[in-house]
């Protein structure tokens, strides 16, 4: 361990964790309302990032773009589009699968993932898009004095701080939405028991649609945040997959747990990079999955999940 790097990596990891937590939130949301585990969420994240990039007029010659919006407008346009995509997915892919076994529904989301992968490649091309408009230049750095750290200071990129703030605020908003608004409570009731929810006048099919729509929005927001840090590419879907360890760590049913799990995964990924050994540093891409195996073996229900796993 290179201890002088630890404070820097600790803060960086925490900041990265916000985005991971937000992405994880979208998966937990769908799981909570309809018991579908959405393996296509990573691809929704990627697709959302590509959509935003396209709305800003990315890839075209300057002035020749079909649509050329400023970043904030592009993000809003992409959020609305992805909400529509979420609704379409629920209506045409998941609703026919109601009552099918777990494996079939999981495969359905995997099929969706493949479809989105191909569509993204056909519509937007396979190469890395480096012209994603960044709100801050990479050299904008916040320097916080911190004795003992490398160079006696912690350096924070504005981009990273901004993504953290957006992710945390958005995640808190969504959690507030589920715990305090009438629609959110209806969604939680549906998650508890479809029949009971129906008997108190909640329209279950609308709740499913709504949760997929919101999940699309969350995914796109996560995609935009990932893209501002690392650019737009097909790899984003794989990057977003580390939300799965976060969910399992936090517990499948817990929205707050997903967010905390995201922080934990971000921390783990960043802290292994403070190691002196190159092998350990390289392992930052699989460290979340090693953690996942440990969680599965020791505490499969996660930190805040309900103990409902059957062991036969």
């Amino acid at each position, binding site marked *: 361990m290179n201890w002088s790097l630890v404070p820097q990596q600790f803060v960086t990891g925490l900041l990265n964790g916000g985005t991971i937590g937000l992405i994880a939130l979208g998966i937990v949301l769908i799981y909570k309302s309809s018991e579908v585990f959405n393996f296509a969420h990573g691809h929704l994240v990627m697709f959302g990032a590509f959509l935003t990039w396209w709305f800003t007029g990315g890839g075209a010659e300057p002035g020749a773009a079909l649509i050329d919006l400023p970043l904030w407008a592009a993000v809003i346009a992409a959020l609305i589009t992805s909400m529509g995509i979420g609704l379409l997915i629920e209506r045409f892919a998941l609703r026919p699968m109601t009552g099918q076994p777990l494996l079939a529904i999981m495969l359905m989301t995997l099929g969706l993932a493949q479809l989105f992968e191909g569509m993204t490649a056909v519509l*937007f091309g396979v190469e890395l898009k480096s012209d994603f408009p960044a709100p801050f230049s990479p050299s904008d750095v916040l320097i916080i004095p911190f004795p003992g750290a490398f160079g006696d200071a912690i350096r924070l990129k504005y981009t990273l701080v901004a993504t953290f703030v957006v992710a945390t605020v958005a995640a808190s908003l969504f959690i507030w939405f589920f715990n305090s608004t009438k629609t959110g409570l209806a969604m939680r009731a549906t998650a508890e028991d479809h029949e009971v929810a129906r008997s108190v006048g909640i329209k279950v099919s609308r709740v499913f649609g709504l949760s997929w729509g919101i999940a699309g929005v969350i995914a796109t927001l996560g995609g935009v945040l990932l893209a501002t840090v690392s650019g737009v590419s097909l790899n984003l879907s794989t990057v977003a997959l580390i939300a799965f360890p976060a969910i399992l760590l936090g517990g499948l049913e817990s929205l707050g747990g997903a967010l905390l799990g995201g922080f934990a995964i971000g921390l783990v990924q960043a802290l292994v990079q403070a190691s002196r050994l190159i092998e350990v540093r390289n392992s930052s891409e699989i460290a979340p999955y090693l953690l996942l195996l440990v969680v599965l073996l020791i505490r499969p229900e996660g930190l805040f999940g309900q103990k409902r796993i*059957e062991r036969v």
Partner: protein
Amino acid sequence: MAILRPAGDFDRSYEQDMALLRRPWHYWLLGVSLLAAFTLPLWGDAYLVSTANQIAYTIIAVQGLNILTGYTGQISLSQAAFMLVGGYASALLVLHAGLPFFVALPLAALAAGAIGLFFGLASLRVKGFYLAFATLAAQFIIPWLSRHTFKDYLGGANGAIEVPLPQLGTVNFGEVSNFFYISLVVLLITTVLLFNVSRTRLGRAFVSVRDNDLAAELLGVNLFTYKLRAFFIAAMLAGLAGAIKAHSQRGVGTEFGYGLNESILYLGMLVIGGLGTNLGPFLGVAFIVLLEDLSDLLGGVLAAAFPELAGQLLTSFRPIFFGVALMLFLIYEPRGLAHRWQLLRAGWRLRPFAR
């Protein structure tokens, strides 16, 4: 396969009851298809033979997945990673231990089986999609290990090593037309074995674990050992397929496609063919490989029409076609092509009364 038989059609001896080939046309069909397969290099062109070769080793991998997911009901997203293990094991045994390919092949299968057992241990604690997570972790960890550890042996960050060609006596298997026979013979062996697994104690125990694990345990099926056996068989067949793939592509490594997408592809092939049927892997793999050819054709036409977009059009239709086919099958025919085949046969037998 216990399907309804017409009145008056019954077996007169135990041998008849046990027979896999029970009618004259079974023998004819088998004979003709074997003849067609074994003479394929004589009348097919190189492209056809290499496609058939690819289909053959992919079927072996999907057969393994069929045991684990189709029969035992354990979701696995790591079949491609186990193939990678088999490919590396065989290549390293041939390169560094100097073993002939035909000795290394079964050893590679055992090595992959051992790794499969290790990750299968997770299935004792968890099931359902929790298990999918454990295998997802395997699918990321194994290729990472091949890229970042033992660089001298595994090829380092590019993740590829060259694999020598198998040799048997004076026959050189460098030609794909010769190599095809290796895949074909191994496929025949695994097929005969699996036909018998599915109708003996082992296969019935697998099915009982899938259908109701609690009831299975009450009936005396030890879940611990049977789940592990399913993992072992699945990984072993993946190892076989991986070793054959590695030697026929003359290289092994993450560059040659052993990623999550391949694992999903195998699952999709299995579902489209028919989960838990012996015919399923054959139909599913053939269907998807043909579909991929079709999508490449469409991609080629479109790329010729829009040359400035050629880069993104050439290969991108494969995941679209595959995803859409998988989704349509899940909605309209979740029991797969094998079920369609059963319906067709039943309709033929019952004509002109039933459709």
